[in-house]
């Protein structure tokens, strides 16, 4: 059974299992590999119909040309990166504090705040974009990445607070009591004793906040109208413009690759925390 996980169910021998998994992997990877290949073709070859399977010559020309898209790809990378960092830091600070408060304290407003967070899980953020658009317009926060960041932070909170609450709840109360007996106040206990023990939870929260901000499309599309304020996914809409009656396919796929590479690298390095976070926030919540 350990050798072939599928065997318990369908008596599939290991070789068959391996072949099925390999076929699935090929299906999953084909679009990605094809996109990378096409981004490395010359602009002319990427336009060719029917498409070539293997590029005649490899070139980074499409990537070089991305620097000429409106404010340039570097500018949009910076926008997306800054936004993601802001979202990560903001989400971490707020959810760690609130998670600790929920895990370890009893206070009068607890039920009220908790109910509010539950309501937030129920109401999708797509539903409040219209008033946000109006309010942000009044406050001058449209076309302001900080404003967008504040929304991203807010909508990461329910998930993140649940994850942090669960991480803190897993720390034995005796450890905390010992520190209180030793004379630590609530803040010192939190800072010196509890926080270091909840680091894995923090990494999960940070990771999910990064992905949410990096990949978000609708709010950025609505609230950022000024091309200099676009994020990477919204920059892709610029690449879809049919400048000479035709989409510049090589350029578009280069943009797609640039947008997805940071997510993939981050996932591959911190995979463990991603899955843990999914369990802590999704299943146990």
């Amino acid at each position, binding site marked *: 059974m350990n050798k072939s996980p599928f065997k318990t*169910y369908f008596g599939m021998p290991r070789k068959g299992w391996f072949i099925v998994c390999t076929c699935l992997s090929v299906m999953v990877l084909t679009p990605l590999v094809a996109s990378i290949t096409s981004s490395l073709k010359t602009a002319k070859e990427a336009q060719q119909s029917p498409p070539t399977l293997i590029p005649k010559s490899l070139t980074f020309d499409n990537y070089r040309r991305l620097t000429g898209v409106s404010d340039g790809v570097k500018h949009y990378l910076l926008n997306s990166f800054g936004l993601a960092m802001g979202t990560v830091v903001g989400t971490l600070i707020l959810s760690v504090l609130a998670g600790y408060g929920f895990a370890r304290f009893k206070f009068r407003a607890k039920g009220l*705040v908790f109910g*509010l967070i539950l309501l937030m899980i129920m109401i999708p953020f*797509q539903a409040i974009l219209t008033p946000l658009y109006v309010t942000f317009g009044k406050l001058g926060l449209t076309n302001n990445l900080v404003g967008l960041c504040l929304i991203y932070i807010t909508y990461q909170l329910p998930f993140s607070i649940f994850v942090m609450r669960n991480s803190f709840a897993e720390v034995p109360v005796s450890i905390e009591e010992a520190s209180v007996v030793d004379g630590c106040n609530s803040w010192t206990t939190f800072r010196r004793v509890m926080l270091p023990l909840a680091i894995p939870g923090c990494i999960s929260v940070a990771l999910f906040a990064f992905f949410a901000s990096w990949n978000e499309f609708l709010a950025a599309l609505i609230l950022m109208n000024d091309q200099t304020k676009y994020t990477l996914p919204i920059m892709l809409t610029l690449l879809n413009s049919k400048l000479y009656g035709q989409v510049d396919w090589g350029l578009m796929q280069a943009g797609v690759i640039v947008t997805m590479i940071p997510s993939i690298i981050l996932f591959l390095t911190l995979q463990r925390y991603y899955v843990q976070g999914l369990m802590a926030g*999704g*299943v146990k919540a």
Partner: protein
Amino acid sequence: MASANISLTRNRKTSFAKKRARAGFYFVIPASIFVLVFFLYPFLNVIWMSFQDWPLLGERSWIGFENYRTAFQDIEFINSVKFTLLYTVIVTPLLFFTALGMALLIKGTSRTTKVFRTIFFLPVVIGFGPASYLWYWFVDSRVGPAPQFLRVLGFGDQEEQWLGIMPLALFVVIVMVVWKFAAFQMILLMAAIQGISKEILEAAEIDGAKGFTLLRTITLPLIKRTISLVLILSVAGSLLAFDQFYIITGGNPNGSTLTTVFNIYRQSFLQFQLGYGAALSVLVAIALMLISLIQLRVLRGDDHE
């Protein structure tokens, strides 16, 4: 830190419990402020806006339930709801059964299994934006690899754009969503299956349960809470679909792939009928709230009970 210590000595008379209660409240204040300002206020605002005629420029006026009355007679809105339901009904079982199959394949702990698991999961972390632009190109009849592949296999000349033909355009989006999202459900299902105790499975095997019987009578009932969670998440997500349709089909051909959120986007931000858009948003919010209430009920239960 120092000031905190000073306040500790000054308030020595305050009982410990009281101080702790107040400390707990302080910890949740920052998050609460964000939720109040960026969620509760806009949420109350959307309800208020939905009762008004609210153009971007010009006078706005209170019109009561007029927006809602319009919505129920608006063919475009009704069609968008119908289409979104159709999409949800097709994509949810497809996603689930793909994910379940994948979960059974990779529930082991060997190194090879983990490599496959990682590969399957890659599309999940890519945003819907880039993933949609990838598929938009992938299925283009002139330059896309998919139609070319079919041509090589001898399926005629695929001259026509897939995205220009109705069932095919929806089909492309569904394939893309399964490609991108099945592994997300796979991970949740896999964790639940791994959580089933070995003894139960071995006992069932000794009793002669195999294949689909084992799956249907033992495994699935034991993970029904996770299955419900996965299905609800999938339904909620599908009802809110926007990115993939906005990018891949643009709502076409002839507005036949216009989803509910896409329709709200058009009413609010292209035609600037902000009051009407708000009313549609409230309707979507109510639908999602009902689904979430079911979700909360489900989450109170437990696997392996």
